[in-house]
């Protein structure tokens, strides 16, 4: 058993802790996350980069939930077809969610993974939190 555990440790860095960025309800019930920089990330990440990521996510969610001509048109058209159109067509929100998933993957590859962090897509947490997993810093800890 001990053998398999050390093998596992070599394959995967251990999770040191997790930070949860909460929702910001100041603008109502729209999906928006707080841009306050958590203290646990201070050693790993620039405040500006973090804020940029969260702000872009907020903008994407705002685009998904925007009440405008396009969403009204989609809603009325869908109603006329008794919403059967959603069985074959993707909703605007779903399209933006895919865009968000691509953005998060991109951010993880470019910025977060090199710093031993992992952004979890909020949709996997019910759009409640942005979970940032902090992995143990292997480069420093190898001597332990």
């Amino acid at each position: 058993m001990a053998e398999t555990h050390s093998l596992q440790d070599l394959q995967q860095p251990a999770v040191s802790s997790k930070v949860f960025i909460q929702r910001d309800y100041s603008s109502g019930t729209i999906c928006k996350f707080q841009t306050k920089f958590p203290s646990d990330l201070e050693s790993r990440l620039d405040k500006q980069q973090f804020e940029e990521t969260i702000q872009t996510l907020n903008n994407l969610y705002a685009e998904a939930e925007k009440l405008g001509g396009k969403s009204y048109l989609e809603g009325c058209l869908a109603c006329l077809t008794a919403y059967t159109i959603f069985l074959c067509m993707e909703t605007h929100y779903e399209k933006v969610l895919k865009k968000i998933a691509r953005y998060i993957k991109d951010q993880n590859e470019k910025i977060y993974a090199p710093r031993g962090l992992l952004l979890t897509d909020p949709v996997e947490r019910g759009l409640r939190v942005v979970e940032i997993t902090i992995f143990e810093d292997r480069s420093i800890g190898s001597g332990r």
Partner: protein
Amino acid sequence: MSAVMITRKVRKWEKLPGKNTFCCDGRVMMARQKGVFYLTLFLIIGTCSLFFAFECPYLSLHLSPAIPVFAAVLFLFVMAMLLRTSFSDPGVLPRALPEEATFIEMEIEAANGNVPAGQRPPPRIRNVQINNQIVKLKYCYTCKIFRPPRASHCSICDNCVDRFDHHCPWVGNCVGKRNYRYFYLFTLSLSLLTIYIFTFDIVHVVMRSVDKGFLNTLKETPGTVLEVLVCFFTLWSVVGLTGFHTYLISLNQTTNEDIKGSWSGKNRIQNPYSHNNIIKNCCEVLCGPAYPSVLDRRGLMQEDPLVSATCAAPASSSSNPVPQTTKTTAPLIPNEHTPDEAKPGIAASAEKTPSPKEEQPPDTKIPPLATPETDAETSIAKDKTH
């Protein structure tokens, strides 16, 4: 121990906590009690069948063939809306995973500071400012989250639902953010259908009575009597309900908020979600974006060591990161302590209703979670009800 590997893929809906029933491999989601929903279906389909059988042949000949056509279109729309309301996810908020629950607990403890022994800790409330009004977010002890504004916990389905309106037994589901517009369109179209059938029943009886007399008409079309009865009683309830929901939509309120009187009264705050414009409120509720489900019912479960103990392969072969609260030693040899699901050879174990996997053995890291009994606010509320 048998070497049979059970590699049946488990979808996430099978492990979801809460008291919902799922059909069609997770595509359909309903409440547990469906009796009243079957009654609704029976009444609608039954009444419409009688209408098509008894009234339509006569009316299409003597008045217009458009009458049954329009009735059919309306009937199909009603059924589509009913099934859409009943079968879709109302906007269930998934429960917090252990790490998130711990994080929130620690935040609460930090905010409360030191509570002297013997005293109850203060109620778990977060204040947020929305549109210059202070809204209180309550903590849900079941889901271990601070509920977003307008969300509420449904005790029948045992889920927190976003923009919770009410639990409707007639549709066999909660009505929440995702299916409210379908529910409203269902009540609206059902009102129209009921009025339509009622009107044409009367027209039909009058027209036929002119020819053959009232009693003969009733003998020839006994279905009419039943239809008129059903429609008469349905009219009052459904039309009233449609009117009530139209009023709620114009004010951008939910039934839950209306019942609790959240935005009414002098000392209460005004509704911060209303645009103060009836048309804008209606547009937002009825024509707003269609929110996707965050439950991911049909996603495949990632194997964790407890579940994969049903396979003969050792747990360490799974390449997924092991959540910290899961046991790190997977029991390969079943003994009296092995949970039933882990015993190999019980092929049907994965198909049984699972006991909630989230209730994992208490980990020493999680601080003792407060319960409603230790919370000041809920105990005061309990005292009030006595």
